[in-house]
């Protein structure tokens, strides 16, 4: 029996409790929304999460740092590379080896992370179109995402859960010809974004469904801990890649798109969608620059070993450390407590972006139509694997 937060005995005669999910395609996974409705109007919304709770933090207290990486993969299963990158960065800083990582390794990490960012945004955009009733963009997005999946399969052997970025290095160097394939992909994909703009971004049905819907004011977004496209959609240029300047991002040239309210109000669903589209263009710019460096001064050499700096024993000094990084959904943070004696973290808490982003939903859902609620939920772009961990 599913629990309800609302007290049914106090319901008015025109009110009704509606359970949305957990098994419904527009819930983007297993999320249950308990809606208090009055006709078509949502009066209150209570999200129930935890259906995909896989005890990441409990597992992490039993495994060594290297062994946690596959679990980190499975948190936000659409952006495994980015999850690993942040995790590995935290462990490397705790070990004090973050300055010794070869440039080529860092550039490959950023290259695959940005490819993964595009793949994740493609799913977000494609499924968002489908939520609102546009079928074609979904297929177009998945067709283009397939190229990235194939490239990752080539590099790491897996299509979704890569376990590619390791503490102190990489699983393998990128395969011969990978750089050229990245270039081909950039050339192929850039016109596809313009095509997507014509079919979805400027589509009047889509604009009518998303503009001025679910407006999230900036102060509310900050107060609820929203990050990533949610926060930038509300008009703030806040991107941890620039704020923290981690990895090789300071050497790369890219812009941070922020919502301007072009179609309606700043912070509406359309703005959040638009920020994702613009971020794909920025990621393409980053990929081009990475490939350029990887083919010129950081060229592959026969003696290059991506595992050269990998520590034999991964035992950080006793300390607490919080690392944060920008994944496509927002701020992903890991909080480690190392005891200084073992390879196993004493505590490893994951602060996931979708978790905080989703917590703002009741605020946005009050007083909207049920069909708008779907548009709002889609624009948040949650992955339940990350919400529930």
């Amino acid at each position, binding site marked *: 029996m599913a629990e309800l937060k609302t007290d049914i005995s106090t319901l008015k005669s025109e009110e009704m409790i509606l359970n949305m999910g957990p098994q419904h395609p527009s819930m983007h996974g297993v999320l249950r929304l308990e809606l208090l409705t009055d006709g078509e109007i949502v009066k209150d919304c209570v999200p129930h999460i935890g259906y995909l709770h896989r005890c990441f933090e409990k597992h992490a207290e039993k495994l060594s740092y290297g062994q946690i990486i596959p679990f980190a993969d499975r948190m936000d299963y659409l952006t495994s590379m980015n999850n690993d990158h942040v995790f590995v960065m935290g462990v490397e800083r705790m070990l004090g080896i973050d300055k010794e990582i070869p440039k080529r390794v860092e550039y490959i990490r950023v290259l695959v992370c940005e490819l993964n960012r595009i793949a994740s945004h493609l799913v977000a955009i494609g499924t968002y179109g489908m939520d609102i009733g546009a079928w074609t963009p979904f297929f177009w997005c998945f067709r283009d995402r397939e190229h990235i999946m194939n490239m990752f399969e080539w590099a790491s052997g897996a299509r979704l859960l890569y376990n590619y970025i390791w503490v102190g290095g990489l699983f393998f160097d990128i395969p011969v010809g990978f750089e050229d394939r990245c270039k081909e992909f950039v050339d192929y994909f850039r016109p596809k974004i313009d095509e997507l703009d014509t079919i979805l971004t400027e589509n009047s049905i889509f604009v009518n469904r998303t503009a001025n819907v679910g407006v999230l004011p900036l102060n509310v977004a900050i107060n609820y801990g929203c990050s990533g496209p949610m926060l930038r959609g509300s008009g703030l240029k806040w991107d941890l890649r620039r704020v923290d300047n981690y990895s090789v991002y300071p050497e790369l040239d890219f812009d941070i798109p922020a919502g301007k309210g072009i179609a309606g109000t700043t912070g509406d669903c359309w703005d959040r969608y638009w920020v994702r589209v613009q971020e794909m263009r920025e990621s393409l710019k980053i990929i081009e620059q990475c490939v350029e460096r990887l083919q010129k001064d950081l060229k592959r050499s026969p003696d290059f070993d991506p595992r050269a700096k990998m520590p034999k024993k991964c035992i950080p000094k006793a300390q607490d450390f919080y690392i944060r990084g920008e994944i496509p959904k927002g701020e992903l*943070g890991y909080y480690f407590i190392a005891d200084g004696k073992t390879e196993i973290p004493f505590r490893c808490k994951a602060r996931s972006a979708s978790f905080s982003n989703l917590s703002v939903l009741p605020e946005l859902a009050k007083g909207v139509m049920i069909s708008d609620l779907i548009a709002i939920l889609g624009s948040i772009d949650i992955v339940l694997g990350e919400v529930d961990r």
Partner: protein
Amino acid sequence: MNHFETARQLISVTLGSDTIVAEDAAQLQPSLTIRTERIAEVCLLLRDHPDTYYDFLSSLSGVDYGTEQAAMGVVYHLASIPYKTQLTLKVRFPFDRESGHMPEVPTTVNVWKSADWHEREAFDLFGIRFQDHPDLRRILCPADWEGHPLRKDYKTAETYQGIKIDF
């Protein structure tokens, strides 16, 4: 003066020097340990004061400091968007493992709304109770789950509602 020093002085001047129980400045990420009953005041001060503006709560984690320690804690990771700084606050309180008794921690939901779900998570996984929290229910585990799984002395459940749990 770095941002850590600014925050430390601001707290001790405004709320009294006994508010800060301990500080750990030697680490890679320095932290302040605050008296448990004052944490909400400290957070509100740090959020609103023009010198700090810690308006973003990155993360709130419950911690069980181990079976020998008889202590639990909550760790707050704050971020300031205008100043681009980060700060770690901690509270630490005694926990009697036999009786399960521990003091309540003042909620910070009134400071940051993001604390709502994070505090529910700390309650769910550690059993830490937050005073005046508007909706302290379990969030990740089912409502009828027994025990708090991330406590260090947690015994893995063998059955749930009469169903055997296989691993």
